């Protein structure tokens, strides 16, 4: 492989490193009164990075197999880039607040660094690279969660995240060490050949799933989620619930489908139980939430349960449905968070009861929120319906009809709380609704991107077929 091709293979990571460094340097050179310019600079720079990353390339390996690049991982990274771009577009209002005047650039830099970690994680060819990527992603996230460091909830969120993250990484590493002990290799390819259902590997696998379960916030490893989501600034919460979770799901699926391919009978049972628990508990807790961030936290836990159904499908179909669902999830969840952020920036309201009568004052935001919630609930004709339907199809392809039944009953329960928000916005009367306001241009662009995605990703079957063609080649 020539040098240029290696660079191409690493294009996502290299571009992000350049961007992060450029933001630091430019921020240093900006005069004191004009620091807000860094927001525009970062947005433009990141858009360029996003576009450049689409450069087509072949598959290949680097560093003796530690780094694997192919079109599917490239597509996954593009999805993450897109999500981060939307988060950046939505963060302007938050960063312009007075208390953030001295730390605007750090927001972008920290997020880009976590993204680099995630990209390496997705492309990893062995457990070492995987673990380094994971840790690179984890530590800056704690900093982001504690971004409002003077607010005790935010500081608490940061501490909670870093402590539990360290614990789960330890558990994960322990599991990896057992798998290494049983197979004598850390390379995915070697392990896949030597894997068996010996007790040590089963134990190692359970530790591995526990560690990943924490990152994806599967029940019973979800306890940190609601508190951290509530304490962190809303844009960081959006980032955590979409990008951080998405990356973890991607690598989890890749490792299951490649490394543990030959011991499906072990992990399918484990995932079955996790999926049922995650959907049900996430849903039941979401029923009673009034804070919009906690609400979306539990809703995203429940969504993670649905994603597990896609993974149950294994192989090309399973991978496709998971990637496809996450692409839709990016648009959907970020639309919901975007509206929540816009309302919070303008009025400080972050409770569902505070949204009462929103349609009378802010009809467009209410409509975007309704679209997003319908998409989360899986109502046609928006994209969420297609995403969920295909996840169920994936589980059905392996004959898990009882699991699908549990899932669809959960989907019906979830409708209750999604409709609850819609009821607050459209039906309930309120003497003092959130006053009418104009959100920033960047926020509007981000919501436009999200709404377009929600409307068209489902109907445009070409996207699904494209992902299918990419993943059928690999699995």
């Amino acid at each position, binding site marked *: 492989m020539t040098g240029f091709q290696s660079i191409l293979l690493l294009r996502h990571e290299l571009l992000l490193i350049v961007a992060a460094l450029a933001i630091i340097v430019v921020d240093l050179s900006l005069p004191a009164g004009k620091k807000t310019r860094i927001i525009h600079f970062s947005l433009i720079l990141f858009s360029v990075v996003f576009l450049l990353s689409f450069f087509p390339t072949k598959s290949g390996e680097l560093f003796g197999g530690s780094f694997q690049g192919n079109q599917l991982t490239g597509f996954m990274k593009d999805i993450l880039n897109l999500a981060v771009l939307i988060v950046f577009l939505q963060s302007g209002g938050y960063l312009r607040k007075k208390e953030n005047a001295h730390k605007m650039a750090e927001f972008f830099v920290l997020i880009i660094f976590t993204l680099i970690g995630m990209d390496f994680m997705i492309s990893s060819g062995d457990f070492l690279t995987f673990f380094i990527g994971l840790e690179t992603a984890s530590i800056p996230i704690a900093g982001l969660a504690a971004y409002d460091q003077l607010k005790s909830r935010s500081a608490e969120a940061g501490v909670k995240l870093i402590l539990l993250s360290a614990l789960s990484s330890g558990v994960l590493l322990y599991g990896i060490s057992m798998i290494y002990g049983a197979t004598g290799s850390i390379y995915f390819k070697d392990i896949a050949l030597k894997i068996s259902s010996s007790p040590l590997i089963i134990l190692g696998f359970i530790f591995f799933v526990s560690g990943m379960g924490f990152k994806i916030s599967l029940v019973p490893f979800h306890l940190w989620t609601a508190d951290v989501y509530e304490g962190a600034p809303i844009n960081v919460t959006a980032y955590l619930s979409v990008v951080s979770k998405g990356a973890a799901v991607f690598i989890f699926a890749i490792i299951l489908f490649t490394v543990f391919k030959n011991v499906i009978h072990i992990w399918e049972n484990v995932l079955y139980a996790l999926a049922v628990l995650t959907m049900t508990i996430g849903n039941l807790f979401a029923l009673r939430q009034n804070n919009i961030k906690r609400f979306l936290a539990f809703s995203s836990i429940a969504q993670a349960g649905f994603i597990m159904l896609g993974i149950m499908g294994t192989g090309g179909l399973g991978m496709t449905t998971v990637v496809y669902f996450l692409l839709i999830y990016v648009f959907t969840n970020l639309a919901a968070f975007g509206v929540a952020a816009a309302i919070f920036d303008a009025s400080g309201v972050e409770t569902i009861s505070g949204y009462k009568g929103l349609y009378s004052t802010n009809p467009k935001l209410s409509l975007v929120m309704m679209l997003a919630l319908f998409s989360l609930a899986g109502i046609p004709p928006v994209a969420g319906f297609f995403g969920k339907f295909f996840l169920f199809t994936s589980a059905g392809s392996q004959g898990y009809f009882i699991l699908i039944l549990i899932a669809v009953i959960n989907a019906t329960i979830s*409708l209750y709380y999604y409709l609850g928000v819609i009821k607050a916005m459209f039906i309930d009367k309120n003497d003092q609704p959130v006053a009418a306001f104009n959100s920033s241009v960047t926020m509007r662009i981000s919501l436009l991107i999200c709404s377009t995605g929600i409307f068209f990703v489902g109907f445009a079957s070409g996207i699904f077929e494209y992902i299918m063609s990419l993943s059928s080649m690999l699995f």
Partner: protein
Amino acid sequence: MSILSLFVLVPVLTIIGIMFTAGLKGTRIVAAVGMGVQLLLAACLMFYYLSVKGAGDLHEMILVSDYNWFPSLNIHYTVGVDGISASLIALTAVVIFAGIFASWGMEYLPREFFITLILLATGVFGFFISLDLFTLFLFYELAVIPMYLLIGIWGSGPKEMAAMKLTLMLMGGSALLLVGLLGLYFYSAPNGGPYTFNILELAKVHMPYEAQRFFFPLTFVGFGVLGALFPFHTWSPDGHASAPTAVSMLHAGVLMKLGAYGCFRVAMFLMPEAATEMAWIFIILTSISVVYGAFGALMQKDLKYINAYSSVSHVGLILFALLMMNQTAIDGAILQMISHGLMTALFFALIGMIYGRTHTRNIYEMGGLMKVIPFLGTMYMIAGFASLGLPGFSGFVAEMTIFFGAFQHQDLFHRVATILVASSIVVTAVYILRVIGIFLLGQIKHEEHLRLQDAKWHEKLSTITLMIGIIGIGIFPLWLSNTIMGSLQPIIDRLTVYLH
């Protein structure tokens, strides 16, 4: 681009058109024009169907068009109609057209109202033209979800509760349905090859009996919830009572038939063995629906509740007839779908108009209205007579056919069930006549009722449209019966193979 896709395209274009209007006047005109075009299309479809069949076309479905939407999963957008779906499309077009005129004076958020209402209709039309279970399911859910907003925002009474109850029960039903449809999909290729959602393809495959036993109840109950199958009917009285007029019309008139049509076209047609084996369970449940609904209607004081329970009873009769699984009974069931659709839409339209004048739906607070609003009163009486099955109206034709069909079964179980169900006709007569006697005839109870105005032009247009259908079917039942009969044969053939 197929002709049938127009039935989805026209409502969508109407919705887009409404988005660019402002105020009640512009909005309702766009809506009326759009749905008028739709009504014309439906009429053309009926005539085209009859002329094609008259010329000796033997295809099961006509105007079939197919687009491979998700090739890797073999999910298609396939449309086509037979006599049954064509007549139901015509019914829908009539009811939505009448519904637009019944909500001519919708003052609160008119633009949003008409958009949501037509979105609902889009789902219904899409459902009836779909031959692929994926799109069928997509349109089915699309027809259900706008109900939440329509009842929640524009309803009356305990509307939030009613809207939530209705939506959750119907979506719960569609959740069961989804499992059933995936089951059909994954058992569609016993000899390898791609799976399919296409109804006509699925009908050629024999699904293993064990699988049918698991998936048939899920699918039947899934659709049955929308058909107000006992004990899943409780959404219906609350939902219909709280919904605004046009929504009650569309929902009782058309949406409940979606459930019955699905039970028949998907559950029974594609899983005939399990249907035959399990029919007795559902015959018992539907018999309860019929009798219980009739007695429920007898006990109510609110006009809307009376008609909601009456709908439970009548739609129960449709499901009952379908489960009899012979040609006469199923023919009657389809006639009843259309007849009841028109009749109940007329009832709800009239109730909405009367309520708009008297501001009460309690029959004991009204009386002698026949004297002050003779047009609406006469219409209500005619609808009532049609509903209790008086000859000359559509209800008579449908119910007679159903009971003839049901009596063809010789065994004790079917006989007892049929006699029980047939006895509900008497109860129907009692509650209809009771209502008419109390609130239309007799003395005027309130002074201010003397000053009521009779129907305006748009109300007359709305009710007369429906009335033409009711009397038309009553006098020329063969016209509709022939349309349906030709399409029934392949279905009956498939069902009767397993019947003995």
